[in-house]
C-alpha cells in the first residue's frame, strides 16, 4: 500500500484551508541551537499533518499517524514515514519534497505547504534520530532551579533570573525601574483596580525604607478592593451575568455567588479549594452554605427560555457549557471539538468528552422553561426576610386552620373526605374542586381565588375568609419572591445515563459511557468515588500538569497584558511554544508548593524587577519584541473599560465603596434595552449611591451588556482572553458618557475646593488625582492653555456653562462660579481622556 492513497488527496480537497502563517501564535523570537521536538517539530507536524494524520481516528488517512513515534516509525509497503537518522529514506521527506501534485504532502490544495526552514528543521530532526517527546504542557510539574544570570544584581526574585538569563542570551538588557509614582499607580491599579489616592502617593514617596514598595504591596493585597479587582476576570471566565440570556432573558439572582468570589479572593482561599468548592462544594462532607453556593459557578451558563425549544436539547447544551468551561478554565483545553469527533490535534477523544459529561449530567435540571432560579437552588434570605417570612408563614397557617375549620360547615362531608367531596361542592367547576381538594394551607393564591370567585355570592362569609387568606398569602409570596436564590449543583439520587451523542445532537444517543477523566491526563485515584467531588479533587491534584500552569498564566496575563502562553484558553499542541516555558513551569510548581496561595503569587509577580521596569520602548526594541514577550520593559496597555470607569469615580471622589449586594443600574443611554428587546425590557436607572458603585456591581443583562464596558467579555460563554482594541467608539464613550462628564465635574469641584487657588497648582492636583505623577512644564502649558480657552468660551456662553454642569445627578456645589467650574470640569474630562489616563503604564 502506498503511504497515502489518492483518495486521501481527494478527501483533502474539501477540507479546511489554512494560511501558512498567522500572527496569532507565531512566536517571533527564534532561539534555536539544537532541534527540540516540543519546541520546533511538533508545532510543524501539528499544523501541517495532524489534520489527516493525527489523533482523530475517524479522519485519519492511509492509517498513518504522525503524532506518535510508533505511528511514524511503522513500516509500510514502500517504506516508512520516518526512519530515524535517515531523512532521505523517510517517506515524509520524500513526499514533502515531491514535485508531483498527486504525491506531494501536504496536498498543494490544502494550503499547508511547508517553508524551506520548516523542511530543514524536519530533516535535521530526523537526522538527529527523530526523537519524540510529550507535549510540554502535559509534562509533570517539576520545580527546576532558576537559571543563573551574569548580572544577577538586577534580579529581585526568581522570576527575574529567568527573565534576565533570556535577555542576556538575546543580547538585550532590562529597562530601568519606572518612577515611583508610576510604579505605585501601576501596582495599585493591578491589585485593586483603583488609582492610589494622593495621600497614599505622598506616604509612599516619603517612605525611604528599603521595603517601602513591599509594604505598599502588602497594604494593597489586604485591601478589600483586592477581591473586587480579582473577581472581575473570574466573572468573565465564569460567564457570570444577572440574566439568563436568549429570548425572555429573565433576571436571575446569582449575585450572592459573585460576592462569595470577592470574599474568597480577599480571604485568600487557596486556589485548589477555590476550585473544589466551585465544582463540587455540595459534595464535600458536611458542606457549608458557602461551599454549596460556590457551585453556582457551574450554573452561571445561559438558560434558553425560547418557546418551541426542546427541553432535552437545552439541557444537553447546559452540560456542554459546563464541561467546556471546566476545560478552558482549569485545563486550558479546547474540548468543544470533541462533541462531534476526536480532537484533531490533542489527545482528546469523544469518549473523553462524554466521560466528563457524565459527571455533570446528574442534576435535576431538565432544560425546560426559562426559570432564572431553576432548582437545585439555595435560598438565601437575609435576617429581615427570615423574620418576615416566619411571621407570615405563621399567619398563613393560622388563616388556613380557620378556613379548614369553617369549611367543615360550608362543605359538610364524611370524616376523612375533602371539601371537594361534599355534596355542596358537587356542582362546582373542576378547577374549584381541585382547589378544594387541597388542605387550606397548601392552596396557592390561584386556588384561593378560584374558590373565592365561586363562593362569593352564595356564601359571603366564606368569601371574606378567603379574601383575608389571599392577602396574607400575597404578602408571604412577595417576601419569598424577593429572596435571592442561587442556582447550585446537586446530583439526583438516581444517576442519569450518559451516551455519546452523534454530532453532539441530543436526539442521537449512541454508546453509553460512564464518568471518566481524559486518558491523556493522570487517572483518578484508585477507589475514588465516581462523582464530581473526585473530579474536582483530581483537577487540582499535584499530578495534574495543567491547572497550575493554566491558572498562573491567567494571573500573569492580568499583570502583563499577555500570558506567558499567549492563548490562555489553549495549552494544547496547537498553542505556541511559550518563549518563557521554564518560567511558567517554575511559577506553576511554586504555586502548588505554596499551597495554591493566590496572594503570594500576585506578590511574587508584582515585586519582581521585571514588573517594576519602565514601560518606555525604543524603536529598536519595539521592532525586536513588539509584544514584550521577553520583558525587556515593563507592561503598558489600555486598562479594561470597567477599570477606566472605576478610576474616574475614584479620582473624583464619587466612588461608593460598599461591597456586594444586588446588582445596580448606573447611567445608560436611554432606549438601549428597549430597542434590543422591542420594549419588553425597560431600563430603570438607579439613583444616588447606586450610580457610583464599582463596575463589578453593574447589572449585566446578558443579551445586551452594559454599553460603557467596551471590549468586555460578553459573559455569554467562558472567556479567559483579554480583548483589547482601539476604536473611535471607545473615544466617544469616554468623551461623552455622562459617567465621565459627571466624574470630571466632581473632580473639578474637588480641586476647586481643596487645592490652592493658583491655576497651575489646581491643574497639577487634577493630574495627580488621575495619573498620580505631576505634569511636566510642557504638559502644564498645554493644560493651562486649555483652561484659558475654555474659560473664555464658557464666559461668552454662560448658559452653556450651566448646562454643562448639569450633566449627571450628583448635586453640584452651588457656591462655585459656573464658568470657572465648567472650564475646570472640561479640563478634567480632557485629563481623563489622555492616553496615559486610559493606560496602565
Amino acid at each position, binding site marked *: 500500500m502506498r503511504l497515502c492513497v489518492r483518495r486521501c488527496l481527494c478527501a483533502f480537497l474539501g477540507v*479546511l*484551508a*489554512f*494560511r501558512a502563517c*498567522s500572527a*496569532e*501564535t507565531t512566536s517571533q523570537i527564534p532561539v534555536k541551537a539544537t532541534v527540540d521536538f516540543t519546541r520546533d517539530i511538533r508545532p510543524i507536524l501539528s499544523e501541517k499533518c495532524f489534520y489527516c494524520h493525527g489523533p482523530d481516528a475517524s479522519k485519519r488517512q492511509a492509517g498513518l499517524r504522525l503524532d506518535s513515534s510508533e505511528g511514524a516509525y511503522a513500516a509500510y509497503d514502500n517504506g516508512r514515514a520516518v526512519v530515524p537518522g535517515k531523512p532521505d529514506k523517510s517517506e515524509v521527506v520524500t513526499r514533502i519534497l515531491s514535485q508531483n501534485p498527486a504525491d506531494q504532502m501536504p496536498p498543494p490544495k490544502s494550503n499547508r505547504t511547508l517553508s524551506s526552514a520548516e523542511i530543514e528543521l524536519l530533516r535535521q530532526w530526523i537526522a538527529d534520530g527523530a526523537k519524540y517527546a510529550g507535549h510540554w504542557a502535559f509534562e509533570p510539574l517539576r520545580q527546576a532551579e532558576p537559571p543563573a544570570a551574569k548580572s544577577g544584581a538586577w534580579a529581585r526574585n526568581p522570576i527575574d533570573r529567568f527573565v534576565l538569563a533570556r535577555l542576556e542570551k538575546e543580547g538585550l538588557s532590562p529597562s530601568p525601574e519606572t518612577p515611583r509614582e508610576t510604579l505605585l499607580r501601576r501596582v495599585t491599579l493591578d491589585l485593586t483596580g483603583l488609582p492610589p489616592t494622593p495621600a497614599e502617593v505622598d506616604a509612599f514617596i516619603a517612605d525611604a525604607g528599603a521595603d517601602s514598595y513591599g509594604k505598599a504591596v502588602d497594604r494593597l493585597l489586604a485591601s478589600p478592593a483586592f477581591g473586587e479587582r480579582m473577581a472581575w476576570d473570574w466573572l468573565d471566565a465564569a460567564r457570570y451575568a444577572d440574566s439568563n440570556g*436568549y*429570548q425572555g432573558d429573565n433576571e436571575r439572582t446569582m449575585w450572592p455567588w459573585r460576592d462569595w468570589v470577592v470574599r474568597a479572593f480577599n480571604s485568600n482561599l487557596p486556589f485548589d479549594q477555590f476550585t473544589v468548592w466551585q465544582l463540587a462544594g455540595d459534595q464535600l462532607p458536611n458542606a457549608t452554605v458557602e461551599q454549596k453556593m460556590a457551585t453556582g459557578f457551574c450554573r452561571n451558563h445561559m438558560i*434558553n427560555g*425560547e*418557546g*418551541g425549544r426542546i427541553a432535552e436539547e437545552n439541557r444537553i447544551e447546559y452540560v456542554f457549557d459546563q464541561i467546556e468551561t471546566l476545560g478552558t478554565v482549569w485545563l486550558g483545553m479546547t474540548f468543544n471539538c470533541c462533541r462531534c469527533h476526536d480532537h484533531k490535534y490533542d489527545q482528546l477523544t469523544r469518549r473523553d468528552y462524554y466521560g466528563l459529561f457524565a459527571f455533570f449530567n446528574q442534576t435535576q435540571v431538565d432544560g425546560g422553561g426559562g426559570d432564572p432560579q431553576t432548582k437545585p437552588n439555595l435560598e438565601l434570605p437575609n435576617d429581615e426576610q427570615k423574620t418576615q417570612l416566619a411571621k407570615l408563614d405563621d399567619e398563613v397557617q393560622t388563616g388556613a386552620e380557620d378556613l379548614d375549620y369553617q369549611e367543615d360547615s360550608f362543605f359538610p362531608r364524611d370524616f376523612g373526605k375533602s371539601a371537594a367531596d361534599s355534596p355542596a361542592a358537587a356542582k362546582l367547576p373542576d378547577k374549584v374542586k381541585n382547589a378544594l381538594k387541597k388542605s387550606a394551607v397548601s392552596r396557592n393564591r390561584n386556588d384561593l381565588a378560584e374558590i373565592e370567585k365561586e363562593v362569593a355570592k352564595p356564601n359571603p362569609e366564606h368569601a371574606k375568609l378567603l379574601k383575608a387568606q389571599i392577602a396574607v398569602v400575597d404578602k408571604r409570596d412577595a417576601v419569598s419572591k424577593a429572596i435571592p436564590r442561587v442556582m447550585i449543583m446537586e446530583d439526583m439520587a438516581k444517576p442519569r445515563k450518559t451516551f455519546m451523542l452523534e454530532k453532539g445532537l441530543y436526539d442521537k444517543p449512541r454508546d453509553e459511557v460512564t464518568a471518566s477523566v481524559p486518558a491523556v491526563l493522570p487517572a483518578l485515584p484508585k477507589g475514588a468515588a465516581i462523582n464530581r467531588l473526585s473530579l474536582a479533587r483530581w483537577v487540582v491534584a499535584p499530578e495534574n500538569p495543567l491547572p497550575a500552569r493554566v491558572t498562573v498564566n491567567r494571573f500573569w496575563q492580568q499583570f502583563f497584558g499577555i500570558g506567558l502562553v499567549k*492563548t490562555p484558553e*489553549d495549552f*494544547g*499542541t*496547537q*498553542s505556541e511554544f511559550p518563549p518563557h516555558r521554564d518560567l511558567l513551569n517554575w511559577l506553576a510548581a511554586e504555586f502548588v508548593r505554596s499551597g495554591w496561595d493566590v496572594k503570594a503569587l500576585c506578590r511574587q509577580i508584582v515585586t519582581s524587577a521585571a514588573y517594576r521596569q519602565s*514601560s518606555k*520602548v525604543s524603536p529598536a526594541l519595539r521592532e525586536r519584541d*513588539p509584544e514584550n514577550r521577553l520583558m525587556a520593559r515593563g507592561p503598558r496597555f489600555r486598562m479594561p473599560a470597567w477599570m477606566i470607569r472605576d478610576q474616574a469615580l475614584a479620582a473624583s471622589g464619587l466612588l461608593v465603596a460598599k461591597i456586594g449586594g444586588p446588582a445596580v443600574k448606573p447611567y445608560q*443611554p*436611554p*432606549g438601549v434595552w428597549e430597542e*434590543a*428587546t*422591542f420594549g419588553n425590557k425597560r431600563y430603570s436607572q438607579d439613583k444616588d449611591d447606586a450610580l457610583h458603585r464599582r463596575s463589578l456591581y453593574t447589572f449585566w443583562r446578558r*443579551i445586551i451588556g452594559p*454599553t460603557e464596558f467596551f*471590549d468586555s467579555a*460578553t459573559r455569554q460563554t467562558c472567556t479567559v482572553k483579554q*480583548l483589547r482594541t*482601539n*476604536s*473611535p467608539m471607545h*473615544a*466617544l*464613550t469616554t*468623551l*461623552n458618557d455622562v459617567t465621565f*462628564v459627571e466624574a470630571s465635574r466632581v473632580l473639578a469641584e474637588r480641586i476647586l475646593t481643596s487645592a490652592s487657588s493658583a491655576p497651575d497648582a489646581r491643574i497639577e492636583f487634577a493630574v495627580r488625582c488621575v495619573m498620580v505623577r505631576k505634569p511636566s512644564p*510642557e504638559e502644564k502649558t*498645554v*493644560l493651562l492653555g*486649555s483652561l484659558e*480657552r*475654555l474659560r473664555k*468660551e464658557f464666559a461668552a456662553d454662560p448658559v*452653556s*456653562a450651566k*448646562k454643562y454642569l*448639569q450633566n449627571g445627578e450628583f448635586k453640584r456645589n452651588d457656591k462655585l462660579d459656573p464658568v470657572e467650574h465648567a472650564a475646570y470640569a*472640561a479640563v478634567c474630562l*480632557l485629563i481623563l*481622556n*489622555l*492616553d496615559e489616563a486610559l*493606560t496602565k*503604564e
Partner: protein
Amino acid sequence: MDPRIDFGNNIPRREFFGRSATGIGVAALASLLGGDGRVMADDKAGAALGALPGLPHFAPKAKRVIYLFQSGAPTHPDIFDYKPKLKELHGTPMPDSYLGTKRFSSMTGNPKGKVALGPIEPFKQYGQSGAWVSDLMPHTAQVVDELCFIKSMHTDAVNHAPAVNFLLSGAQIPGRPSMGAWLTYGLGSTSANLPAFVVMTSVSKGTTCGQIFYDFYWGSGFLPSRFQGVKLRGGGDPVLYLNNPDGMSSTMRRGLLDDIAKLNEIKLKEYGDPEIATRIAQYEMAFKMQTSVPELSDISKEPKEVLDMYGPQVKERGTFAYNCLMARRLAERGVRFIQVMHAGWDQHNSLTTELYTQCKDTDQPSAALVKDLKARGLLDDTLVIWGGEFGRTPFIQGSLDDRKRWGRDHHPYAFTVWMAGGGVKRGITYGESDDLAMNVARDPVHVHDFQATLLHLLGIDHERLTYRFQGRQFRLTDVFGKAVTQVVA
C-alpha cells in the same frame, strides 16, 4: 495627512502585524487620509484600507453588501414559492412521503396528520422572467427581473436564535464572527469616516413578535472587536455616545481634542508605544463620526420622488423603510457591510392578520432600494440579499376552522431568499423545492453554500479567509460550503 500629527516611524505592529495597511488600523488610517465621505474613487486591486494581504483573492463582482435580514422566517409558500399542488391539497393531511422522520419545533412535535395549507393569497407571474409572486408583495413583483431567487435554501437549525446565528456566523451557538465582521476583517474599509460594518434594526408596528436581536448577530466573535457591527440606533443618539455632552459646543470639543492630541504626542515621543499613535487617530475619527453620522442621517435633501418610492414610513426612524433608505446612503458612502434586520416574520398564528402588515412594511422599501441603487449605478457592485433564517411549514399550525388564527411553524427543509445586483444573474430562479414546498427537490443550497457564494461574489475564496483561534483555523463556512457559481453573472 493631518499636519498636527507626525507619525514618523511609529507604526503600530502589535495588533496589526501582517496587515497590508501601514498598520494604524482601518478606521484610524481612513481618518488620516481624509476623504469626503463618498466611495473612494479608486479602490481597485483591494486598495481598501486595512485589507489582509492577498485579499481579495480574485476580482470581486461586488464591493459591498446590503443584507435585508427578515427575522422570524418569512413564509415561503405564501410569498415567493408558488405551489399549485399545495392549494389542491389544502385541508387534507400532508402525505407521509413528504414528512419522513423530520424533526420539527416542539410546537409542532409530530407532524403526522397535519393538514396542508394553501397559499393565503393568489400568485401571479411578472416580468420577462415570469417569476411567480404573491399578491402580498406587489412592489417586489415589479422588480423581479432584477432578482435572483434561490428557492432551495435549507438549514440545520429549527429555532430562531440558533438559525439566525447559523446564517450570519456559520454556527448555531454564539461566539463566531458574523459575516460583516469577516468581510471587514478580510477586505478592510472603503469609508473614510464611517464604520465599515453598520447594523440597523426594526420591527413592524403592531406585531406581537417576540424575537430579539442579539448583538452577537453582528458580533466579531473571536476577531478583534473593532470588526463588530456598529449599530445605528432607531432612537436617541444614532450611535451610542455620539453627541457631545450638554453644554459643550463643537468648537470646545475641537479645542479639547487638539489638546488631547498634543499631550498624547508628548507621551508618544517619550514612551514610543504605537498604541498612542493609534489612539490619537481614533480620537480624530471619533470627531469625524460626530459630523459624518448626522450628515448621513440628514435626509432633507432627498428628492420627494425618492422618498415616496420607499413608502409612507420612510421618514420615521426605526422603521424598515427608513433603514432601507439609510442603507442606500451608507452604500453611497462606501460602507462595506450593511445589515438591516427586520423582525416580525414569525407567523405561528397570524398568517391572515399580521402577515399583511409585515409584507406591507417590507415589500415597498425592499423594492425601492433595488430601484434606487440601480438608478444611481450602485446596483452593479452592491449585493442586496433578502431573506430569513428558515421557511415555514407548508402544513398548518392551528385549526383549519379558525381562519383568524392560521399559522405555519418553523421549517428548515426548504426556503427562499432573493439576491440582486453585485454580480448575480438577473431575473433567474435557482433551485427548486418539491411540489408542496416541503423539501429541496433540485440544486440544494445549504447555509454554508450560501455563505461561500456571498464571499465568492466579494472576491473571496471562503476556504482561505481564516482566523486562528483556540489552536485551529476558523472560517465563516466552518468546514463545509461550496460557492454556487451558477448564480454568478
